[in-house]
């Protein structure tokens, strides 16, 4: 009924033992691997909270996004089975992530290009509110 050659294609790499009923479609994750993944994810969440308590300046953003990327990769590779899935699905995901990076990166780059215009505008249109710590960040006008 189902062609065995087709079945073999979809499995991809197997990790050692093969669990599951005969003829099962797809990769069966062991419950141990699922629980391990959750434990690692919770540990990384605690780590994110701990790192955020330290004042590392710009590194705070880098650290938070870095840990989030690691967590997202773990979810994608194990919970979403990308490690065992067809390569094509993996590349769909990766190309989407590449476009995400391109979109955010390019728009941030563009935004930083006209910062001097904003600076000039602020100098010619000073805010009359009392000074706050460091320099202010506002341009929106209260009603």
């Amino acid at each position, binding site marked *: *009924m189902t062609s065995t050659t087709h079945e073999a294609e979809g499995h991809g790499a197997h990790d050692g033992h093969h669990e599951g*009923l005969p003829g099962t479609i797809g990769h069966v*994750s062991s419950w141990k691997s699922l629980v391990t993944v959750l434990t690692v994810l919770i540990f990384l969440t605690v780590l994110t909270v701990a790192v955020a308590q330290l004042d590392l300046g710009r590194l705070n953003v880098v650290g*938070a996004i870095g840990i989030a990327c690691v967590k997202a990769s773990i979810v994608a590779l194990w919970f979403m089975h990308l490690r065992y899935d067809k390569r094509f699905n993996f590349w769909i995901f990766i190309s989407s992530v590449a476009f995400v990076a391109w979109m955010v990166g390019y728009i941030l780059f563009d935004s930083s290009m006209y910062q001097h215009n904003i600076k000039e505008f602020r100098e010619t249109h000073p805010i009359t509110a009392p000074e706050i710590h460091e320099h202010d960040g*506002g341009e929106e006008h209260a009603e």
Partner: protein
Amino acid sequence: MSTSVAEQETSQAALPERPKQLAMHFDTLHQQFTTGKLAMWLFLGQELLFFTGLFTAYAVYRGNHQEMFHYAHYFLDWRLGGANTIVLLTSSLTAAWSVRCAQLEQRKGLLITLALTFLCAAAFMCIKYVEYSHKIHIGAVWGSNFGVPLNEFPEHLREKYPDLTPEQLQQMGTGSFFAIYFCMTGLHGIHVLVGMALYAWLFIRALRGSFNRKYYGAVDNIALYWHIVDIIWIFLFPLLYLIG
């Protein structure tokens, strides 16, 4: 003409019996499964790009208004956000486990994991409701509607910046932060609600015994969707609640 029709009929009769879940345009259940999965991955790829619009708005506003983002993040309670992170990660485990149960044809396990995923999603929305209602109550809302009186300032914010006044916060455009906050978490919340509806539907189908080791594409694809909802939150939590 009539002979060719007759030939077709005889060749069809020679084919083995088709499983009842196999749609007419597929050859095998395996082909049907991988096709559905490919479509799901394409959908998830565009879901990421869909959310990226909002993440980009966040990045640009944060880059241009760093002080405002710093003050505003004190209004979010990281303990509630952290609790929601744990709830959502746990639901991701139960979602992945439901796929395992469907593959192994463990009917009871499938029903339990589907129900647990639904309940975790409901718990997430309950915590979200507590957060939203508190913010709306104190006036920490979007755009020019933003206006939090001094006595509603979070303790940490008052301790660290005793001179900060509500007028200053308003003038800095703190409403923009909350516009982004409500848009991002709101869109994510809508995805959680959709996920709850899908898991309710899966539960009913599992009750009827619709799934087996060769036919569980719906369980697998909805779990994939659920994991993407989880991944989005993995980024939302530190960006909104933790780093100021």
